[in-house]
């Protein structure tokens, strides 16, 4: 066991896969010699050399296009897009090329690649460097979409993503990079499409993703201590594939449901889950399911403002308490 930061877990996860398979290569802006703008790839260039860890120009289309061409012909590339907001300048690959080439070619073309990206708010970077764009990716058939909340999951889910024969969007949360967790020694490989109950409880289910997981856990602690409300917190971990069985199972047990989403309100992943629960578990519910989200606004830069709009442990706890009491 060792205590690792989320940032160091990214390094360990990439290194684990590159050591295992010489076809795993890694490219992106400033990822090599500089070790990444978030210092989440430090040392990989020295360990694996300039042919396997390669700096690119600021050309997001070239990065993702090259990753795809390499994946189609035998490599297993990991490509970094520095901020997930930049998906907007290379969205053709995410929306049109990676996920449709296999289908359109009737199964001839493969696309086993991972796009790693810094996602989410809390860094006071303003509206174009802080977004949570998991819903941009979740809506596209053919992609897998993963967002880990802790260092062990970073390694295990990254390994599963690299070994997956599909295009995987791997969303690392920028505000989680400095957070720490105990990580066991040796190879760690997880399974995509598995949610995890990170806090069992009987009164209500709270679903969360990435940075919202520790916030939901903090809210659960507060709700238990102050109001005796026993929350079950589920880390969704993977939006596609979606582990609906764990989610529906939890709702069947607690009979209440909250989602905590960092994305702006409309078309967030929680809405899709609410729709599934309404279809398939309506009679399990003892009260209305509630989405806790960022309001439908661009994110403000100022710390005081950003702290108000992102779901906080206080807002989560307050929303759950009021909803359960009503």
């Amino acid at each position, binding site marked *: 066991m060792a205590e690792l930061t989320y940032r160091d877990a990214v390094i360990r996860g990439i290194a684990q896969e590159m050591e295992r398979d010489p076809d795993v290569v890694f490219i992106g802006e400033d990822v090599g010699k500089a070790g990444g703008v978030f210092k989440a790839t430090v040392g990989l260039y020295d360990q694996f050399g300039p042919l396997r860890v390669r700096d690119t120009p600021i*050309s997001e289309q*070239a990065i993702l*296009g090259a990753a795809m061409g390499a994946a189609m012909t*035998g*490599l297993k590339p990991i490509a970094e897009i520095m901020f997930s907001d930049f998906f907007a300048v290379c969205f053709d690959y995410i929306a049109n090329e990676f996920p449709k*080439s296999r289908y359109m070619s009737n*199964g001839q073309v493969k696309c086993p690649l991972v796009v790693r990206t810094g996602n989410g708010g809390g860094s006071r970077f303003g509206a174009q460097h802080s977004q949570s764009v998991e819903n941009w990716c979740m809506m596209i058939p053919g992609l897998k979409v993963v967002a880990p909340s802790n260092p062990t999951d970073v390694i295990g889910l990254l390994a599963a993503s690299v070994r997956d024969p599909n295009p995987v969007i791997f969303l690392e949360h920028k505000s989680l990079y400095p957070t720490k967790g105990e990580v066991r020694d040796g190879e760690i490989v997880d399974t995509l499409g598995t949610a995890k109950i990170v806090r069992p409880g009987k009164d209500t289910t709270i679903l969360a993703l990435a940075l919202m997981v520790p916030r939901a856990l903090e809210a659960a602690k507060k709700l238990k201590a102050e109001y005796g409300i026993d929350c079950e917190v589920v880390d969704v971990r993977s939006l596609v*594939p979606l582990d609906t069985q764990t989610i529906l199972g939890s709702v069947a047990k607690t009979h209440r449901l909250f989602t905590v989403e960092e994305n702006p309100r409309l078309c967030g992943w929680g809405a899709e889950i609410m729709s599934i629960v309404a279809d398939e578990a309506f009679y399990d519910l003892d009260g209305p399911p509630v989405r806790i989200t960022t309001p439908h606004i661009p994110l403000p830069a100022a710390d005081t403002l950003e702290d108000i709009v992102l779901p906080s442990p206080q807002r989560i706890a307050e929303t759950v308490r009021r909803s359960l009491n009503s």
Partner: protein
Amino acid sequence: MATANDRAQAKAGAGLNDDIGEAKRLEMYRTQVVIREAEQRAFDLFLQNLVKGTSHLSLGQEAVAAGFAGAMQKGDLSFCTYRGHAHTLARGVSVEKVLGELMQRDNGLMRGKGGSMHLTSVEHGVMGSYAIIGAHLPIACGAAWRAQYKGHKDVSVCFFGDGTTNIGAFHEALNFAAVWKLPVVFVCENNLYMEYTPIADVTAVPQPAADRASAYGLERIVIDGNDADVVYRTAQEAYTKARSNGGPSLIECLTYRHSGHSRADPAKYRPDGELEHWKSRDPIKIYRERLLQFGVPEKTVAGIDTEVRKIVDDATEACKAAPPPSVDLITTDVYADGGWAWRN
């Protein structure tokens, strides 16, 4: 300094036993006739409402496809645009499979799942036809990067139209390929029109591809795209450079499409006489005359024409008789496990 076109032309006129030789010339003639006959047939079938969706023909541009494919080796990779029937046929994909896809039948190349704009045959090295302008230039870079990384000797060849030279991905790919010294050959088929608008009206330089080459440290190459010999020689030079770690090339081929941009376009925007001028430089006419001039018997040439027509006729009948795609295909191959499951 001699241009690529000059270099190619200088080798011409040496007779049938020159650097190209009779067998390769007959092959390239046949390829052009296959494309011409198959695409003309596609147009006729469209008029009968048997070709569905859209289609973008390369009538008049056959020499580019024949020359570049003719100079390729097995294992070399083609990346095409939505105007990709010609390049797909040039790599040896059967007429029936191409027409079947255009007619959206079960015997189509992708069994109707892709359509005219996405012809793909990995076993023939046709790594896809891309319908978003510019998308496949970076993708071709990636395939070339794999070759470089693994020490393979194949070349990735990326075909696109003049309109592509004004989109960002073109410039990202050119810089990327040059900086990484990738074994990729970018081929611009300049047919004078982006869609309906003349490329000259919307481009800052006269030669939309070649005049950008210097920005990426590449040679300015403009060639006669209607002469398969010129195309073949230029392709060979670029492939040799790519295989010997010399990096990418950007080649602008001057050519002309005899039909409109897509099946919906009657091409009324063309000035009087332009089509006639280019038809006098029809690549198949040029090549037929060359073969005869080099002493190939008329009978041999006519024999190719007859053989190809029969192939296209037979393919047409097979496609007309083929059923529509199986409904089961709707949910296959979304993911690598062959299915479409996004949840448990």
